C-alpha cells in the first residue's frame, strides 16, 4: 500500500531526493505503520532498532482537520501587521501578497470589514500605473501578473462608485497597455522589455474577461501561441520560440528555423494551468459557427474531438484549415501522472520526476476543474466503473479497515479523473504548518502563496464546479443588451475616463467607458452578442451540488468555499464583478 517509488536499484540524484521526501511524508501519514521507520527529523540512525517516534510525531486519525482558525489568524496577521524584512524579495509583487491573503480568507469564509476593504482598495489603486495596468508597487512599471492580482483582489473587496476601486480602474489605458505588449505570434510580453510566457497570457485574459475588454484584436493568434507551447508529454511549457524574428537588425529572416515554434522548457504544472485556462477563456470569442466560411485559424481554439480522436493523436501536424488544436488526451494523461503515490499522500508534483509541492494542488489539481470547460471529466465513462465494488476503504492514502467516522464516509462515486480524497489528505496531514498557514511540504515554513494554493486545491478537491447548462439558459434569458448611446446625450467617441471629482456623486456616477470594447468596424448588435457570449461563459460556472459531487475528507467542518476554476475567485465575487462591467443585474438564484 505504501510502497516507496521504485528505483530499480539504480539510484540517481532524482531518486535520492525523492526517497528523502517520502521518508518525511511517511511521518505525516496517520495510517503508515512501520516499526523500523526512521525519523528524518531526528538524528537517530536509520538502523536503530528503537522506534524513534514520539507519540506526537505523527497525526492521529482524528487529526484530519483543517485548522481554519489558525490559518485565518496567520493570514490576518500578515494583512494587518505586514511582512518581515525577508519578504523584500516580494517588493515587486505587493498586489500578489494581498491577493494571496484576501482570496485565502474568502475560501475560508472570512469577509473583511469596510475599513480594511477600503485600505486594500487604496493600496491597490496606489499601484495603478499612469501608463495603465498595475505594477508591483507604487511607482513600479505595470505588469500583467500584478494586474491580475490587483484586479482579482478588487473583485473581492471593491465595489462600484467613488473610491470603490472598480470604476477607478482605468480600462482605457489598461486596454492600450495590453495591446502594446502583443507580439506577432499571439504571445504577450509580461511587461515592457520583459519576458514572454503563458502566465502573461492567462493574466491578460482573466482581467480582460472580468473588465469587458476582451476583443478579437487583443486575442489575435493567441490560440496558436498556446497550442505551440504543448510539449510531447502533454503538458505545456512557459513559451515557444517565435516564428518571427523580433530583432531584424540583428538576425535576418533566413536564420529562422524551418520547423517553427518549439516549446521553450519542459511541460510544467504552473504553465499548464495558465495555458489550459487561457484556452477555455478564448472559446467564447469563436464566432458563431458558419458552415459556409472556414473559421479563422488564428482565433479559433479547438480541442481534439471528444470522446476520442483517431489513435494516436498528434498535435504536431496541425491542419491549417482546422485552426490550432491542443491534444487533450495527452494532457489528461500527463496531468493524472503527476499525482503522487499513497506514500506521498496523493500530492501533486509540477513536472515529471520532480518532488511534490502543495501549490500544485491548485496548478495541477485545479486543471481538472478547468477541463470541465472543455467538457472533460470522468462522467463520460463512469458507468463502466461504478458498477464494480470498491474493495478497499479509500482510494488513496487509506489503509484497509481504518475506522472511519460516519461523516467521513466516502461515496466513492465522484466523476473526477484524479484522486480527490488523496489530495485532501496531503493538504490536511502534511501541508498544514503547526503554527498556522500552509506550505510546500514539511518541514518547510508556511507562506501566503502556499496557503492560498493549498486552500484552492482543497476547494477544487471538495467541490465540482462546472459550466452549468441550466445556469447558461438562465443567463441567456436574462442578458440585457447595452443600448447604443442616444444621439442627444452621447459623444461620438468614448466618454472621458476616469470621471472628474465633481462628477463623483452617488446619483450620477456611471460606469466609465462602457463602449470601450466595441470595435469601430463592429455593429452594436455584434458587439453585444460577443460580450454576451463572454459574460455567459464566465458566469455559467456553478457548483454542482448533486450527491457525490461534494466530499470533505475529515467531515464538513473542513469545507472551504468553492472557487471559480478559471479565475480562482469565489463564484459570487466572479459574477459580481462581471455583472458590473457588462452592465448586467441578473443574479443567479442559489
Amino acid at each position, binding site marked *: 500500500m505504501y510502497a516507496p517509488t*521504485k528505483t530499480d536499484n539504480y539510484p540517481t540524484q532524482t531518486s535520492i531526493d525523492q526517497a528523502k521526501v517520502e521518508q518525511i511524508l511517511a511521518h505525516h501519514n496517520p495510517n503508515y505503520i512501520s516499526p523500523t521507520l526512521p525519523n528524518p527529523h531526528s538524528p537517530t540512525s536509520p538502523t536503530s532498532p528503537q522506534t524513534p517516534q514520539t507519540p506526537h510525531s505523527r497525526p492521529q486519525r482524528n487529526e484530519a482537520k483543517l485548522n481554519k482558525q489558525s490559518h485565518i489568524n496567520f493570514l490576518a496577521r500578515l494583512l494587518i501587521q505586514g511582512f518581515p524584512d525577508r519578504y523584500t524579495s516580494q517588493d515587486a509583487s505587493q498586489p500578489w*501578497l*494581498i491577493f494571496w491573503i484576501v482570496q485565502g480568507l474568502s475560501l475560508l469564509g472570512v469577509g473583511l470589514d469596510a475599513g480594511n476593504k477600503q485600505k486594500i482598495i487604496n493600496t491597490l489603486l496606489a499601484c495603478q500605473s499612469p501608463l495603465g495596468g498595475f505594477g508591483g508597487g507604487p511607482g513600479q512599471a505595470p505588469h500583467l501578473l500584478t494586474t491580475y492580482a490587483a484586479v482579482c483582489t478588487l473583485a473581492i473587496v471593491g465595489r462600484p462608485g467613488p473610491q470603490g476601486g472598480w470604476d477607478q480602474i482605468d480600462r482605457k489605458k489598461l486596454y492600450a497597455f495590453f495591446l502594446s505588449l502583443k507580439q506577432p505570434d499571439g504571445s504577450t510580453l509580461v511587461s515592457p522589455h520583459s519576458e514572454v510566457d503563458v502566465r502573461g497570457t492567462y493574466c491578460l485574459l482573466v482581467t480582460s474577461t472580468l473588465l469587458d475588454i476582451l476583443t478579437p484584436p487583443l486575442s489575435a493568434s493567441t490560440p496558436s501561441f498556446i497550442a505551440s507551447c504543448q510539449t510531447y508529454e502533454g503538458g505545456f511549457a512557459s513559451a515557444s520560440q517565435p516564428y518571427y524574428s523580433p530583432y531584424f537588425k540583428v538576425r535576418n529572416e533566413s536564420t529562422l528555423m524551418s520547423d517553427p515554434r518549439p516549446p521553450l522548457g519542459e511541460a510544467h504544472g504552473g504553465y499548464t494551468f495558465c495555458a489550459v485556462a487561457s484556452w477555455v477563456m478564448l472559446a467564447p470569442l469563436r464566432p458563431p459557427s458558419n458552415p459556409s466560411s472556414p473559421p479563422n485559424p488564428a482565433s479559433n481554439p479547438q480541442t481534439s474531438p471528444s470522446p476520442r480522436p483517431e489513435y494516436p493523436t498528434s498535435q504536431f501536424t496541425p491542419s491549417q484549415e482546422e485552426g490550432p488544436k491542443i491534444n487533450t488526451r495527452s494532457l489528461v494523461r500527463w496531468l493524472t501522472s503527476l499525482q503522487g503515490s499513497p506514500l506521498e499522500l496523493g500530492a501533486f508534483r509540477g513536472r515529471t520526476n520532480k518532488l511534490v509541492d502543495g501549490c500544485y494542488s491548485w496548478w495541477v489539481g485545479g486543471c481538472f476543474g478547468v477541463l470541465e470547460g472543455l467538457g472533460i471529466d470522468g462522467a463520460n465513462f463512469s458507468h463502466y*466503473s461504478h458498477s464494480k465494488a470498491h474493495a478497499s476503504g479509500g482510494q488513496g492514502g487509506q489503509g484497509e479497515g481504518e475506522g472511519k467516522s460516519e461523516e467521513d464516509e466516502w461515496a466513492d462515486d465522484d466523476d473526477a479523473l484524479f*484522486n480527490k480524497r488523496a489530495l485532501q489528505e496531503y493538504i490536511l496531514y502534511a501541508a498544514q504548518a503547526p503554527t498556522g498557514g500552509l506550505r510546500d511540504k514539511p518541514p518547510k515554513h508556511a507562506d501566503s502563496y502556499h496557503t492560498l494554493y493549498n486552500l484552492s486545491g482543497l476547494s477544487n478537491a471538495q467541490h465540482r464546479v462546472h459550466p452549468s447548462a441550466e445556469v447558461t439558459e438562465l443567463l441567456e434569458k436574462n442578458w440585457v443588451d447595452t443600448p447604443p448611446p442616444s444621439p442627444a446625450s452621447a459623444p461620438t467617441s468614448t466618454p472621458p475616463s476616469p470621471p472628474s471629482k465633481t462628477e463623483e456623486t452617488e446619483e450620477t456616477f456611471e460606469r466609465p467607458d462602457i463602449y470601450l470594447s466595441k470595435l469601430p468596424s463592429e455593429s452594436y448588435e455584434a458587439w453585444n452578442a460577443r460580450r454576451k457570449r463572454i459574460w455567459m461563459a464566465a458566469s455559467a460556472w456553478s457548483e454542482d451540488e448533486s450527491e457525490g459531487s461534494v466530499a470533505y475528507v475529515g467531515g464538513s467542518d473542513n469545507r472551504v468555499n468553492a472557487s471559480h476554476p478559471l479565475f480562482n475567485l469565489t463564484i459570487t465575487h466572479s459574477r459580481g464583478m462581471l455583472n458590473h462591467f457588462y452592465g448586467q443585474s441578473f443574479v443567479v438564484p442559489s
Partner: protein
Amino acid sequence: MPGDSVLYSERPEWSDIQPIAQYETVTPVAPIFYSDEYKDATGYFRAVVKANERSERVLQLTEHIIRLNPGHYSVWQYRWSTLLALGSSLEDELLLMDELATTYLKTYQVWHHRRLIITELGGKSNPARELRFIRQGLNVDSKNYHTWAYRQWLLAHFNEDALWEGELPFVEEMLDEDVRNNSAWHHRFFTVWQSGVRAGEEDREYTLNRELSYTKEKIALAPNNGSAWNYLRGVLDFTKTSYSTLRTFIEPYTAPRDESEPEVLDLDNPLPSKDAQLPCVAAIEFLAEIYESEVDNAKRAAELYRSLAEVHDKIREKYWNYRVGEALSSAGQVVAS
C-alpha cells in the same frame, strides 16, 4: 555592496535628488518591513525614474537594488534602457550577469536580462561561451527551468550548426549523470525533433532508430522512469510510428521476471536490468494502448487498464477506469460501424 554602503541620503553626490516615499498618501495594508538600506535606495530609484535620469550613477543604483532584490523587474527594465541610452559596454554587463545569474539562479530577470544583452550584441556575441556558462549553471541546479529555457532559446535564436553540434553529446552527459532528469529528456526532444533537421541528421529513419535504441537502453537500465517512457511515446507520436512496433520490447516489462526462462540476448530489445522492479506501470499502459489500437482487442486492453486501477497503480484508479470505459466504448463504435 549590500549591507555596508552609505545611505544615498548621506551621499553628497546624490544631494540634488529628493527621494520619493513609496506610499505618499496611503497607509498600505500588508506592508513589508524593508531594511533602511532598501528603503533608502528604492526612494532614490523612484525619484530618478520620475526625472527620467540616465546616468552612470543610475547604473550603480540599479545594480545595488538588484543585489538586494533581484526580482525587482522595474529596476531591471530601467537599467536596460539606461544601458542603451548611455551606450554602455554590454560585454561588461554580461560579466556582471555571470556573477548575478550564479547567485540568483531562480530569478526570471537574470535570465531575461542576459537574453536582451545577447540579442542586442547579435553578431558580436559569443553564443558558444553562453552554452558553457549554462552548463556550469546546470551543475548547480540540473533542473532549473529558466536555465534550460534559455539554452533552448539561444540555440533556436542563433540556429548555427556549430552550436547544435555539441547538443547531443551534452544531453547524453546530463542523462548519464541522472537518467531521471526530465529537463534533459525534454532538451533531447527539442534538439532531435523540434528545431529543424540538423546537419548529418537528414536520414530521419536512421535518427528514429537511433533514438529508439537509446531510449530502450535507458528504460532497460531503470524501467520505472516516467521521463524515458514519455520520451519514447513522444518519438513515436511525432514520427507517427505505431506503438505495436515495440511490442517485443515492451512485453518483458509488463510481468514479473520469469527466472526459469533462459535469457536470450537481443540487442534490439534489451531486457530489464537484473534489479528491475517489475511489472512496470508504464509498460502495462503501453501494451494496453497497443491492444486498443488493434481490431477486436479492446477487452484485453480494458483488462490491463483494470489491473492498473485495481492492483498496480491504485492512486490513479479513476483515470484508469476512465481508460477502461474509453477502450470499451470505442470498441463498441468499431462494431457498430
